[in-house]
């Protein structure tokens, strides 16, 4: 009986996907060990983060998707409430107000929004799936815009873009007309100067330093240049684990979190990067395949949006350390040190697995 319930416990876990994710987590831990200079406390904390995330993943994979559908709007409202709490009771760090302290840990509500937005928008389109028109799209846009504006005010440009694009992907997948998309992207281009002016000076500088990192080598371009030096000096084969001079010598900031991929690139070289990209490709392929095979609107949109969120976050982080995007301060899912990021990423995978293994439970 015990054995049976134990098997039941894992029955909704996709074996291929979990194998890929675990290999990514292992790479992350190995890199973190080097980046933190074998800081056992940090490594121990990260292992706990992974365990907590894994328990949540397993738990969520066993949840009936109907419950996600049912709770989606409430979760959305709850996450908005948390954002309001941040604005009034949150504490500042690095010049931004993003966190609230709940009992014994610091919560970043914008990370929760990364999950609630896909669920809520999927819920919306699922509910009106027989009558999707511009009104529904407008509603979706409003639902998306409210948390985006709140997060932008914190300020957290990176997360805003991430959530904004994850939401937009759902609207896009839900069949927003091409004509409308073309018109709106034109209007976006026209509005660009105004949007630019609403950005904080440091955000403007970060974007400018991306265009020309040399314009202020010790200022905003510094991290970008240091990161590229670290990666570039890794060469084809890399310098070897714990031999990354740039990262070991602390030229790079935040090597455990935002710049962990620089450490990876420096120590494992181009070959290592090709290796990790293969894993990324397999995860993406597997997830998209799962989403394509899902039977209802809610599941498809949620799964697609969550996968997209994970991969666009990975892309933004890797492009940032590679000098292709401005330094926005976004962690690399599954790899970077940090509880919130780890738990949220594994939660997303858990939800996808639940949606995948309960294909027929929500009838269209």
């Amino acid at each position, binding site marked *: 009986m015990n054995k049976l319930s134990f098997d039941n416990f894992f029955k909704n876990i996709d074996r291929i996907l979990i194998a890929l994710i675990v290999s990514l987590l292992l790479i992350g831990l190995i890199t973190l060990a080097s980046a933190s200079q074998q800081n056992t406390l940090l490594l121990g904390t990260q292992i706990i983060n992974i365990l907590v995330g894994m328990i949540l993943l397993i738990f969520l994979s066993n949840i009936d998707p109907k419950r996600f559908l049912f709770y989606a709007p409430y979760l959305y409202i709850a996450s908005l409430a948390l954002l309001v709490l941040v604005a009034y009771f949150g504490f500042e760090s690095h010049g931004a107000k993003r966190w609230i302290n709940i009992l014994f840990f610091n919560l970043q509500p914008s990370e929760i929004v990364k999950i609630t937005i896909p669920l809520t928008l999927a819920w919306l389109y699922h509910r009106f799936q027989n009558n999707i028109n511009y009104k529904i799209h407008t509603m979706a846009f409003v639902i998306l815009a409210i948390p985006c504006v709140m997060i932008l005010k914190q300020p957290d440009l990176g997360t805003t873009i991430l959530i904004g694009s994850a939401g937009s992907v759902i609207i896009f997948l839900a069949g927003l007309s091409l004509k409308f998309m073309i018109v709106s992207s034109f209007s976006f281009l026209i509005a660009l100067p105004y949007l630019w002016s609403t950005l904080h000076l440091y955000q403007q500088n970060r974007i400018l330093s991306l265009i020309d990192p040399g314009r202020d080598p010790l200022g905003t371009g510094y991290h970008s240049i240091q990161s*590229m030096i670290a*990666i570039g000096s890794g*060469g084809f084969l890399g310098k070897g684990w714990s031999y990354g*001079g*740039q990262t070991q010598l602390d030229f790079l*900031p935040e090597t455990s979190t935002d710049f962990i991929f620089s450490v990876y690139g420096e120590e494992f070289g*181009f070959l290592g990067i090709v290796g990790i990209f293969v894993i990324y490709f397999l995860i993406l392929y597997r997830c998209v395949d799962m*989403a394509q095979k899902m039977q209802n609107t809610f599941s498809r949109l949620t799964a697609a949006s969550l996968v997209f969120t994970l991969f666009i976050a990975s892309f933004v982080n890797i492009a940032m350390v590679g000098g292709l995007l401005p330094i926005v301060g976004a962690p690399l899912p599954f790899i970077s040190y940090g509880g919130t990021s780890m738990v949220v990423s594994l939660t997303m995978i858990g939800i996808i697995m639940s949606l995948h293994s309960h294909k027929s439970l929500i009838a269209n």
Partner: protein
Amino acid sequence: MDLYKFKYTFKNRLNFIFSGLIFLFFLLLIKFFYLQVIRFDNYSSLAKSNSLKIIPIAPIRGQILDRHGEILAENKLIYTLEIDPKKKMDLNKVKQQLSNIVKITKYDIKRYKKTLSESYYSSTLPIKTNITDIQLSNFIANQYKYPDIYLKQKFSRSYPKGKSGAHFIGYLNRINQTDIRRLKKLDKFGSYIGLDHIGKTGIEYFYEDRLHGQPGYKTIEVNAKNHVIRTVKTIEPKHGEDILLNIDYKIQKIAEKAFGKYKGAMVALDPDNGEVLAYVSQPSFNSNLFINGIDETNWRRLNNSIHKPLINRVVSGLYPPGSTLKPFVALAALENDIRRPPFSIIDKGFYNMPNQSKTFSDWKKTGHGEVDLIKAIIVSCDTFFYGLGIELGIPKLNNVLKRFGFGEKTNIDMPNEKRGLIASAEWKKEKYKKKWYQGETAITAIGQGYTQTTPIQLALATAKLINPNNNLRPHLLKESNTSSHMKSKQIDLIEKQIDDLELIKNAMSLVTKEGGTAAFLGRNTSYDISAKTGTAQVFGLKKDEIYDESKLPDKLKDHALFIAFAPSENPRLVIAIVVENGGHGGSTAGPIAKKVFDAYLNGIN
């Protein structure tokens, strides 16, 4: 939209997004290929220079010592508090932060800004120099509070004698943009990396190359926080040489004391080899004020003073030689076989220009009676020399003056030496486009007119009376081997010239005997002094105006000049003195010379 169409659209669009993400990751792969494979060499070398830092190690500057090893310039260990100008810190905040430990004055901030504007190196700059032991221990105890303030330990130049000898010792100052341009031109800039001071005047300037040495380097590995991880390689610096001077500081001190409050200059030479034993320029200044950049108040006080304390009068002060020129003029006459004793004139107190109604008066209204060349030197008879000058003419006079070094640099080892001037008709024509008058020849013969000399020229010319060696050059640096050729009195003069010199020197020895212009110097001495007094007019008297020293304000008083050597037989020391506004030469300058001779010849008690 029906569900079938929805599913179809979803599938297509999801595939589109899937392809888009694949494309984005492919872009990343290209970027990493570019960074790690194509540009590997570039980034690899960047990475190396990133973590390896070369830190210059400053050499220790040589000391300056007198001939007996007395320290004139040394290096003292001091502590400074420095900040990194790249961090662009608010100076008022720094001031406030440090207020518990040390008071940062307005002057400190001003100096910091001045240093910053002049500094070239991107290193840290001192906000407070030379902190006391108590301030030092307070800072160390609280250092963790000041991560952006660096405590630096360095050697600072120090001049233990202060004002004494300041002109020839010179001083250091921080390297500024002008120095950098000069050093770059001379291709010496490399040896100043890590150093922030350079000699600006005096010996500090002249022997800069020997004193400053060569910096060494330390290659260290650092992290981005600039914390040293390890030392890779060390090349020790080559420390600067100590400079030993010919100056005898005991004599120097006595000479300075003898000068008292008078302004002027004195230089004492060994006639055998040109070694400078004492070198006085008054008034003086405290060299220590300059080391870390002089403050404005002191600078203005020194630079704007009517007494011009910053001028190195020994080499840069230009004075009409007055009657001290007479021995050389007399020698020119002898060499041209005019006015050789027993030729004499009767001096009635004035000289009538030939074919003119113009007369020139003697300093003694009543005249000196019967005067020959020897007496003319002893009593400094102007009348005799007016006539001599007219008879001799400027070109012949200048030939001899040139041989004694007038109008030329002595090439003493001091910067800013002036040439002085011996005037001629050609010179006047070029300079003033005017013709030379015969009257000008007459007054040139008594050392007035256009002629200008520096005290060092007077000293060298006097030394050449004793040692007529063309290679004789006054020098401060004590050189162990090079002076030998000077010691051999290699005189390429014919016998007659030697006799002429003896005649002049004999006349000079009688100046300090009864009847001479410096007779009082000859009394109560254990050795004979040979001398010539001189008085140089500072301003011209109007016709019929009588020069009355006691009624003139100091600054209009005549300059007193004095050249001397002793003992008269086998002279060991030559002295030239100018006392500005000192009135008559013998009475003010003479006693100074006497004290120096006493100290040198009789030993110091």
